[in-house]
């Protein structure tokens, strides 16, 4: 027994030991991370390629779909146009037929009314002619009567005119006399008015002169300069003033 009692280890055990020592937890984790990174890289690359292919496919599909839709629409529009044209044509023809019928009926009614009107006009024309003939006959009779009356009136007017002329001559003579009298009276009145106005003017003139003097002489003299005149006036009225004061 001693230090070298230990059994010598085999190479397999060493390899296992080395393997276990080499592939420890850290190394395994490193390997997992590397694997994960690699997997992600592959996935991303494949995703990008897939996306590129998908875009190309979608673009191609869009183009084909657009072309197909256009084609289908053209066919449908052509078909609808043909059908619409037929329908419109049919409708128009029906309406034209109805209008023609209505116009024909209106023409018939108008012709009927015109015939009736013409007949009425003929009757009215006949009646008017008869009335006119009658009126002319009446007018002729009236004119003859009026002429006779006018003739008599003219004769009367001539007589009256003669009388009027005579009366006018007399009136003119009377007017001349009145005019002369009026002229005389007017002249007399004018003379009187003139005299009256002059009298009034003289009265007013006196007032005007007084007013002028009042304005012109006012404030011209002070009391001192008036005093001799005032005392003189008072002297003249002295006895009366004394009597007033005593009474």
């Amino acid at each position: 027994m001693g230090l070298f009692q230990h059994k010598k280890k085999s190479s397999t055990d060493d390899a296992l030991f080395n393997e276990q020592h080499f592939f420890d937890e850290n190394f395994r984790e490193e390997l997992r991370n590397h694997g994960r990174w690699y997997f992600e890289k592959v996935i991303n690359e494949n995703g990008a390629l897939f996306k590129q292919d998908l875009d190309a496919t979608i673009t191609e599909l869009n183009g084909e779909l657009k072309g197909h839709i256009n084609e289908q629409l053209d066919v449908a529009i052509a078909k609808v146009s043909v059908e619409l044209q037929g329908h419109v044509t049919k409708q128009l023809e029906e309406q034209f037929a109805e209008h023609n019928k209505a116009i024909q009926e209106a023409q018939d009614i108008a012709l009927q009314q015109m015939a009736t009107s013409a007949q009425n006009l003929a009757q009215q024309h006949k009646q008017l002619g008869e009335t006119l003939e009658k009126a002319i006959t009446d007018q002729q009779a009236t004119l003859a009567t009026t002429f006779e009356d006018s003739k008599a009136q003219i004769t009367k007017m001539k007589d009256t005119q003669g009388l009027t002329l005579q009366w006018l001559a007399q009136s003119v003579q009377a007017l001349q006399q009145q005019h002369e009298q009026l002229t005389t009276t007017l002249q007399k009145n004018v003379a009187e008015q003139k005299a009256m106005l002059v009298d009034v003017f003289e009265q007013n003139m006196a007032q005007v002169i007084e007013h002028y003097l009042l304005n012109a002489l006012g404030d011209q003299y002070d009391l001192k300069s008036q005093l001799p005149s005032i005392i003189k006036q008072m002297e003249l009225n002295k006895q009366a003033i004394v009597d007033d004061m005593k009474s």
Partner: protein
Amino acid sequence: MSVPRALTFADFALPTNIVSKSDVSRLVAEFEQVDDQLTTAAIRSKTGAGQPAPLSLSQQLTEFMNQNKLRPSTSKERSELIKQLRLLKDSVPVMHMTFAVEADRESLQQLVQWLRSSVHKQAVITVGIQPALIAGVYMRTPNHVRDLSLRASLKGSRGVLVKDLEALRGSR
């Protein structure tokens, strides 16, 4: 000197600087005031309260006293004089005079002098102004009015003016 027994308000002569009735009223009021001052002074001298202020009389009162020779020395005399002055104030004859312009004091004194020498020795005047009179005076006594103005003169001469105008018209 004292107020003589016989001297009453009717005997007073008014100086010419007393022109209007308000001057007379002022004279009475002033003399009453003087009497009050003299009475107060007498009482103060009796009580030995000191010398009173010297009296100051207006020119109107001084002239009135001098002209009438009045020297009332006792309180009784002053009271009698006040009584007479009051009677004078109530009895002075007043003449109202209206002028065309404002009356100066000197002219009024001359007019009062004439009135006192010619009409009544105690006559006073009251004054009015009326520019429409132009000149002259409009007098009013208690019972009468006298228009001695130029306006009245012109009015009275209006007939002459009308006659002159008529004559002028006749000459044309």
